[in-house]
């Protein structure tokens, strides 16, 4: 294919580098520096997709971020990305793209039948059409909507690209590199401020790239290039192109997405695809420019109808003609600039100007160029289905209500200019209450809310001289405030054409007998008639009208449609626009990829993985791991092809008969020091702590202020003013914060310090009847007899030259010890225990066996201490001191907590002694009772008791105290099980606790 719409010697593209790409399977050529849109237009391709609701043919409307139509499915390096704007996607070798929202193809679209059935798809069509019958929803409506109405298709493959996050601080963040952005950045940078200048597009300069102006005896583009290259050299300046500042958040934090590799065929090695910048700026200058407004007329969505500024940009930046027989339809001077550019390149445009008799420099220039201009003329309707072929035009009365005789003129594109809408999104997001500016028929930022200032066109200033002056000044003033420097830059001489005022005209009336669709929102297919219906049906608030009609709700967020929608509502409602108000601008300004938002926090990076010092040993010995909070813990050590059930049973049995060793490094450990340490413990734990002797451990339970159990664990008195607290793995961080809270805020008079030592100690629990014999061999020079190291005793030992702490505590209910060494020695300790333990048939055991052992002992843990239970529920009421106050004690007197039939932990055994009981099942009295069957309790933990060789569960059961011996049913609708059970004591093994003391 030839690029038959490409001009020679015009544009900023690199003609030396020809690039091939595919659109809808067909190969085309463009140049380096093209966007997909400009390259397609160079090839005369205007039909790019189908509209969302009516599936009408769609072309290009803009040339950048405001584009409502040209959304494609992009294929790059084996990956696909939906909803890419062709106007933003830069061309690269091998680019492939397809149309979205058309099935089976862009040229023959079944959904287009909606266009002829549009009577069924008026405003609120989602709410009306797909309401009933209910059964139709899943079978008919939803599949239809999904197939016919979707935009692009998201990839279901893992995204191999890398996305990064970056945090940055600066004095001034400047969003947009048009005249105001460049001038303010330059002034601030020269005054020593740390500046970040962000430009959404690949090229810096904004409108300076396309406007015929002269700054300091240079063309706009030359001046912009000069400023940018000077800024790039300055160490205090960061200049970023392809970077969209899309969100303005609290406390002057802005987020910017930088597209680093999207314009390349393939991301370079070690480069991210995109980078998300979190920028905390002392001051923000919003120089985001403005977007041209369309004028609404019949069939104004026909491919070939586009913004006049876009036509000019395609011509001047890309050397592309959007048509060879252009019709310019304008209500202001901007349309003339486009017409003149066409004329200068040998094309004869025609201008329809809705104004009656405007006079300005540029109009004179157009007249001198012999451009055909019709004043008081409008386009009534575009003609042509897949492309504009002609236009119905007419003279319009001075009051803009009567049309003259309809004439038809040939044209191949209609370039529309309905004046300009400032891009106030960032200012509005910052909290700035916008105000309506009558002169430009648009909202502009009001009083600054955060440290932000809006400049130039974004502030409704369309005069270059004034824009540059105020921007130089703002850059200087704001930087001076921060740096205290006063280095001024000289202000360049500006030459520009003076323009005259625009016509407050935005919608062409319908001619008699015609019912053309006149679109407001091009992406969501919202027409004038839809808004009229919504208002007729009683919708008043603009926010409601938006949601009912979907006006401004598409991926372009109404960048080109908002104001015309407001004009319409204000006209029908007979209110002025500021009283209608605008809908809320929310971040992101433009769609941001999920990848960029997620950054590196994917897969293994989504949370840190902590490993114990013995991790490699576990791995070598076939441990199957399980996540325990952020830790990886061995669940069981697989032997041969045994499964979890078999392996954990073997391990638990070995603890009951010989000796086992379990890695307990992950338990939270808090070092507590200070003369008031005992007093702190006495207030935090429910039991008494003031008289614990040195060298002794004690089990303790701590509550929240509302009486609910927060955590349990043992704390050991290492020396006079030094305690070692253990917490559960899951609650370690919360318990530390809890202690800090009380020490810093509630009882600052207590002289105590707390610090986490979880990572400092490696722990091994040695449990089983042979554990003492093993311990004696590990510490031959220490007295570990029942007298020397009694239950809940503590000594410091020496493990083959390594300092060790030995606690006689038990979680398994067996005679057991816990040995701690400094983390670096963890693996040494572990290997020694395994080596020396061989003669006692030692086996390592994982968390599953640990669970079995604690469940059959009736030892409550996380599944019972689940943030809903009080000490009584867990049979821990014996640990509640009556003599002293403690955190949460007062709450325990609440009526519900002292009820006679209060829930309590019990044991549950199936009557057949065979059927395993699913955790989470409910306990009921009568399995045949009508629904809802009153629930008496729930199964908190289940195991296969190795002691009794039958299933055993713990449950929290209403009136549990009086239920022992009763027969109930366990019901699990999820697993479709009903199991007759007997309620027994929660202490299923060694109820008197003799083993731990043996």
């Amino acid at each position: 294919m030839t690029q038959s719409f490409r001009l020679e010697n015009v544009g900023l593209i690199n003609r030396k580098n020809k690039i091939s790409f595919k659109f809808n399977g067909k190969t085309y050529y463009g140049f380096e520096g093209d966007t997909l849109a400009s390259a397609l237009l160079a090839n005369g391709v205007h039909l790019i997709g189908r509209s969302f609701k009516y599936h009408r043919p769609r072309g290009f409307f803009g040339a950048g971020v405001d584009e409502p139509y040209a959304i494609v499915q992009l294929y790059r390096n084996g990956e696909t990305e939906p909803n890419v704007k062709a106007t933003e996607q830069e061309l690269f070798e091998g680019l492939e793209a397809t149309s979205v929202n058309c099935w089976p193809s862009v040229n023959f679209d079944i959904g287009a039948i909606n266009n002829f059935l549009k009577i069924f798809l008026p405003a609120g069509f989602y709410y009306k059409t797909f309401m009933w019958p209910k059964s139709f929803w899943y079978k008919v409506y939803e599949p239809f909507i999904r197939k016919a109405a979707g935009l692009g298709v998201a990839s279901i493959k893992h995204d191999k690209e890398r996305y990064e996050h970056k945090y940055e601080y600066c004095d001034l963040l400047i969003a947009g590199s048009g005249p105001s952005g460049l001038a303010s950045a330059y002034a601030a940078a020269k005054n020593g401020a740390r500046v970040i200048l962000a430009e959404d597009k690949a090229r810096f300069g904004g409108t300076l790239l396309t406007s015929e102006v002269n700054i300091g005896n240079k063309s706009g583009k030359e001046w912009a290039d000069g400023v940018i290259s000077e800024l790039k050299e300055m160490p205090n300046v960061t200049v970023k192109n392809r970077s969209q500042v899309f969100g303005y958040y609290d406390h002057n934090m802005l987020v910017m997405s930088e597209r680093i590799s999207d314009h390349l065929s393939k991301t370079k090695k070690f480069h991210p695809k995109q980078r998300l910048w979190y920028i905390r700026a002392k001051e923000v200058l919003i120089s985001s420019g403005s977007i041209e407004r369309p004028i609404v007329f019949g069939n104004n969505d026909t491919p070939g109808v586009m913004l006049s500024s876009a036509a000019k940009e395609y011509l001047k930046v890309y050397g592309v003609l959007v048509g060879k027989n252009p019709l310019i339809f304008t209500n202001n001077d901007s349309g003339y600039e486009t017409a003149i550019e066409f004329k200068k390149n040998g094309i004869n445009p025609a201008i329809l100007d809705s104004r009656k008799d405007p006079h300005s420099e540029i109009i004179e220039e157009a007249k001198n160029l012999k451009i055909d201009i019709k004043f008081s003329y409008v386009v009534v309707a575009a003609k042509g289905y897949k492309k504009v072929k002609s236009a119905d035009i007419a003279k319009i009365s001075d009051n803009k209500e009567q049309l003259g005789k309809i004439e038809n003129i040939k044209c191949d594109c209609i370039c529309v200019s309905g004046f300009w809408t400032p891009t106030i999104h960032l200012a509005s997001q910052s909290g700035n209450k916008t105000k309506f500016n009558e002169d430009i028929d648009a909202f502009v930022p009001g009083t600054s809310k955060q440290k932000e200032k809006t400049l130039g066109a974004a502030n409704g200033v369309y005069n270059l001289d004034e824009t540059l002056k105020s921007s130089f000044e703002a850059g200087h003033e704001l930087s001076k405030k921060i740096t205290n420097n006063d280095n001024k830059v000289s202000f360049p001489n500006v030459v520009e054409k003076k323009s005259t005022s625009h016509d407050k005209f935005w919608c062409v009336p319908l001619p008699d007998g015609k019912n053309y669709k006149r679109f407001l929102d091009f992406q969501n297919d919202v027409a004038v008639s839809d808004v009229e219906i919504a208002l007729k049906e009683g919708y008043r608030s603009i926010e409601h009208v938006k949601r009912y009609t979907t006006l401004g709700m598409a991926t372009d967020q109404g960048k080109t449609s908002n104001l015309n929608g407001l004009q319409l509502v204000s006209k029908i409602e007979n209110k002025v626009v500021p009283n209608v108000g605008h809908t809320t601008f929310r971040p992101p300004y433009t769609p941001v990829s999920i990848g960029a938002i997620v950054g590196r926090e994917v897969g293994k990076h989504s949370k840190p993985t902590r490993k114990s010092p013995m991790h490699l040993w576990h791995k070598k010995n076939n441990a199957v791991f399980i996540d325990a909070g952020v830790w990886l813990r061995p669940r069981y050590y697989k032997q041969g092809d045994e499964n979890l059930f078999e392996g954990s049973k073997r391990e638990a049995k070995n603890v009951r008969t010989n000796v086992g060793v379990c890695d307990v490094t992950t338990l939270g450990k808090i070092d507590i020091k200070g003369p008031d340490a005992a007093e702190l413990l006495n207030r935090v734990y429910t039991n008494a702590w003031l008289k614990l002797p040195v060298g002794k451990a004690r089990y303790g339970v701590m509550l929240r202020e509302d009486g609910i159990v927060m955590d349990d664990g043992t704390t050991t008195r290492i020396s006079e003013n030094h305690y070692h607290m253990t917490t559960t793995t899951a609650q370690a961080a919360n318990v530390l914060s809890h202690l800090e809270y009380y020490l810093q805020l509630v009882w600052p008079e207590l002289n105590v310090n707390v610090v986490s030592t979880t990572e400092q100690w490696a722990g091994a629990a040695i449990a089983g009847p042979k554990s003492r014999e093993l311990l004696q061999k590990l510490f031959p020079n220490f007295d570990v007899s029942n007298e020397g190291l009694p239950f809940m005793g503590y000594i410091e030992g020496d493990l083959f030259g390594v300092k060790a702490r030995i606690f006689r505590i038990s979680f398994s209910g067996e005679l057991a010890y816990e040995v701690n060494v400094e983390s670096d020695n963890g693996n040494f300790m572990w290997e020694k225990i395994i080596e020396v333990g061989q003669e006692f048939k030692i086996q390592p055991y994982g968390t599953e066996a640990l669970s079995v052992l604690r469940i059959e002992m009736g030892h409550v843990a996380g599944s019972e201490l689940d943030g809903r239970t009080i000490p009584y529920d867990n049979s821990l009421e014996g640990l509640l001191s009556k003599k002293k106050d403690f955190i949460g004690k007062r709450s325990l007197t609440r009526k519900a907590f002292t009820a006679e039939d209060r829930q309590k932990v019990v044991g549950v055994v199936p009557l057949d002694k065979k059927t395993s009981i699913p955790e989470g099942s409910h306990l009921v009295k009568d399995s045949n009772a009508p629904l809802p069957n009153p629930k008496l309790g729930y199964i908190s933990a289940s195991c296969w008791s190795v002691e009794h060789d039958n299933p055993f569960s713990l449950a929290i059961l209403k009136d549990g105290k009086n239920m022992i011996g009763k027969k109930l049913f366990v019901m699990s609708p999820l697993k479709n099980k009903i199991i007759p059970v007997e309620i027994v004591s929660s202490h299923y093994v060694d109820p008197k606790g003799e083993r731990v003391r043996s």
Partner: protein
Amino acid sequence: MLHIKCPHCGMRSQNEFSYGGDATIKRPELGKEISDQDWDNFVYNRKSLKGKHWELWQHISGCRQWIKVERDTATHEIFNTLKATEDIS
């Protein structure tokens, strides 16, 4: 994301902190008689204020100190920050 001035460390991003609720609530003294209503007010009852509010934050990924922050709950403006031991005036 808020920018909070830790009285110990200086200006830090919100993601270094965790929120701790109303800073004006005073825990009743240990061991003292207290009515059900007063205890309920301490444990459960909180005002959901619109506007200036003294609240607790902990600089959890920094100095680990609990601090008092005066913030507007509607605009997120922060007016003042204090150390745990400093009294709200």
